[in-house]
């Protein structure tokens, strides 16, 4: 195995920085990714899991209390019929967009750097969509008749109204969850086979049987790889418009209504840009600690973090443009209700939420014009937290400020969350982190076979011309 020279010149177009650093060979990459599963579990993991499960149980308790008592336990009131549950839904579903973006869109664009972060991001997507799905479900009020949203016969002898964007959302989110989970599982199969074979070789019989069951008897046959790679490419091709459609349809929940502040055509692209922004923010929040705790610095390199920071800069600036354009159209459109809605948004009773959103989403990513900030994990982590906060506030601002002062001043109101709102939202993080910690312990957090495929040695014609980067065979 030839070793790889570390070239730290991402700006130089003549050199492509290696995706795997530290001169690793195939076996070392396998061992590195398998290590958290095979070595003794650190005490911090148990602590983290315990705390996460406790918070998750609190979520279940809150849902139980809600179902038992009714939606009056929340702060939702008459002008503000959509409170935190919808804010939380859009927050989580937005986070769930980065995984599919990385796995599908970057796959089609042949961005090979995706290989070391796609697995964990896809897992993050699935867990975020799980957390998201809870909120509209419990928001319907009578959750025991939630099946009325599906086109199945029911006691009303009626079918769902397919002209409602809320129903489009049901189809979009359930399709997105299914396709993301399939994409993730297909990608996992060769790596589950790796874990099966390692467990077998190390005599861990039960682990070998469990991994082996889910690996489906994979043995890397080229006849299998041909169909496998075709399926993967098709899934990437399908997921690319899917990921764009999901948040567009989420934005229709708002934009198709006639409410000033919601009824704008910029919503679909603006929501998609925001979703990608929030998703990459959460990718950084998870991956920066994970790469250091799991010792994956050579696989998730500073170049990867640098690329993510550039995407944050781009999408953060895009949402900044959307915020500005909303104000411009409100002024230019000449509709006084629209103009009032936006003046009220920035300078009304919720001014603090609006300016928190602007500071976190538009101002904080501007740091990433500076290369040394893009390559500093501490700065990246802090900004990623700001992004998470800012994107939650974006949804709060859109939902609550548009609703709280409607057309009739006598029905104006103010929304304040209850402790149940807060604990339910907190609880969704418990679910998310419980799932992620289990994933990080028991499954390959890096797509092993894909990372090997982008290493220079993977090219069967490697070494003929002394090329130092994997650019496919001629």
């Amino acid at each position, binding site marked *: 195995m030839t070793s790889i020279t570390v070239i730290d010149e991402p700006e130089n177009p003549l050199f492509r920085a290696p995706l795997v650093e530290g001169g690793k060979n195939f076996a070392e990459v*396998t061992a590195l990714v398998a290590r958290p599963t095979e070595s003794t579990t650190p005490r911090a993991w148990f602590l983290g899991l315990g705390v996460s499960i406790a918070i998750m149980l609190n979520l279940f308790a809150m849902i139980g209390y809600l179902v038992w008592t009714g939606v009056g336990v929340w702060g939702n009131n008459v002008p503000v019929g959509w409170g935190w549950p919808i804010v939380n839904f859009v927050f989580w579903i937005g986070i769930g967009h980065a995984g599919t973006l990385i796995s599908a869109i970057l796959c089609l664009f042949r961005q090979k750097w995706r290989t070391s972060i796609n697995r964990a991001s896809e897992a993050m997507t699935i867990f975020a969509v799980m957390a998201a799905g809870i909120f509209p479900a419990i928001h319907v009020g009578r959750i025991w008749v939630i099946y009325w949203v599906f086109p199945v016969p029911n006691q009303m002898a009626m*079918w769902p109204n397919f002209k409602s964007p809320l129903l489009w959302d049901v189809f979009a989110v359930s399709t997105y969850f299914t396709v993301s989970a399939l994409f993730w599982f297909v990608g996992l199969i060769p790596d589950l086979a790796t874990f099966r*074979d390692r467990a077998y070789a190390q005599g861990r019989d039960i682990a070998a049987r469990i991994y082996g069951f889910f690996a489906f008897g994979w043995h*890397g046959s080229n006849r299998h790889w041909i169909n*496998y790679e075709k*399926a993967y490419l098709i899934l990437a091709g399908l997921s690319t418009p*899917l990921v764009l459609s999901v948040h567009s349809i989420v934005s229709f929940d708002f934009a198709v209504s006639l409410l000033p502040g919601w009824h704008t055509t910029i919503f679909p692209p603006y929501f998609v840009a925001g979703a990608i922004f929030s998703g990459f923010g959460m990718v950084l929040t998870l991956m920066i600690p994970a790469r250091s705790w799991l010792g994956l610095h050579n696989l998730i390199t500073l170049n990867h973090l640098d690329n993510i920071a550039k995407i944050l800069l781009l999408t953060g600036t895009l949402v900044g443009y959307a915020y500005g354009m909303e104000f411009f159209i409100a002024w230019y459109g000449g509709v006084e209700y629209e103009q009032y809605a936006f003046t009220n948004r920035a300078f009304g009773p919720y001014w603090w939420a609006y300016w928190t959103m602007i500071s976190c989403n538009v101002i904080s990513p501007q740091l990433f014009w500076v290369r040394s900030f893009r390559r500093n994990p501490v700065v990246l982590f802090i900004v990623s937290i700001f992004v998470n906060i800012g994107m939650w506030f974006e949804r709060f601002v859109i939902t609550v400020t548009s609703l709280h002062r409607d057309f009739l001043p006598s029905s104006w109101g103010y929304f304040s969350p209850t402790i149940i709102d807060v604990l339910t939202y907190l609880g969704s993080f418990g679910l998310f982190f419980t799932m992620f910690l289990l994933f990080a312990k028991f499954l390959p957090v890096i797509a092993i076979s894909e990372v090997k495929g982008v290493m220079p040695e993977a090219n069967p*014609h490697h070494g003929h011309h002394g090329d130092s980067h994997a650019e496919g065979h001629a």
Partner: protein
Amino acid sequence: MSSEANVWGVVAEFDSPAAIYAAAEATTDAGYVQVDSHTPFPIHGIEKALRHGPSHLGWFVIGGGITGITAAQLMMWWMNAVDYPIYVSGKLPYAWPATIPITFELMVLLSALTAVFGMFALNKLPRHYHPIFKHSSIHRVTDDRFFLSVEATDPKFDRSATAKFLESIGGKNVELLED
């Protein structure tokens, strides 16, 4: 060793993508047809060396997608305009623009399900038992070793000659596997 009927094939081990690629070319050049490689990741271009055809999965997926579009349109038209017409805010019970989002989602859903389950069907997976798992170092096929198999169904297959041939092109741990 049992009779020829039980022999599944001969498997040899190689230690790099370049070696397995050269071995695949040499084996098919020598006239073998039932040749397959077993590798930790797809070796690009090796399907030409092995003379494996392209995947036909795409055709199944197109079928899945058309089924999704048709099912979505029929469902929304029949449910909202025929079986129980719903008139909301003066809109037609069935109007095609409002059906686009769900039609798109069901097209994607059925295409994706076809892609995944079609891939499993074409690959005949899950199949937890396979003769190749009897090879002594096959557990490294998902790590850093590259294997070439010549199956007994190959007309040119001969248990000793094929094994010698695979050794002659650099194969290590050449083993005869039974089914």
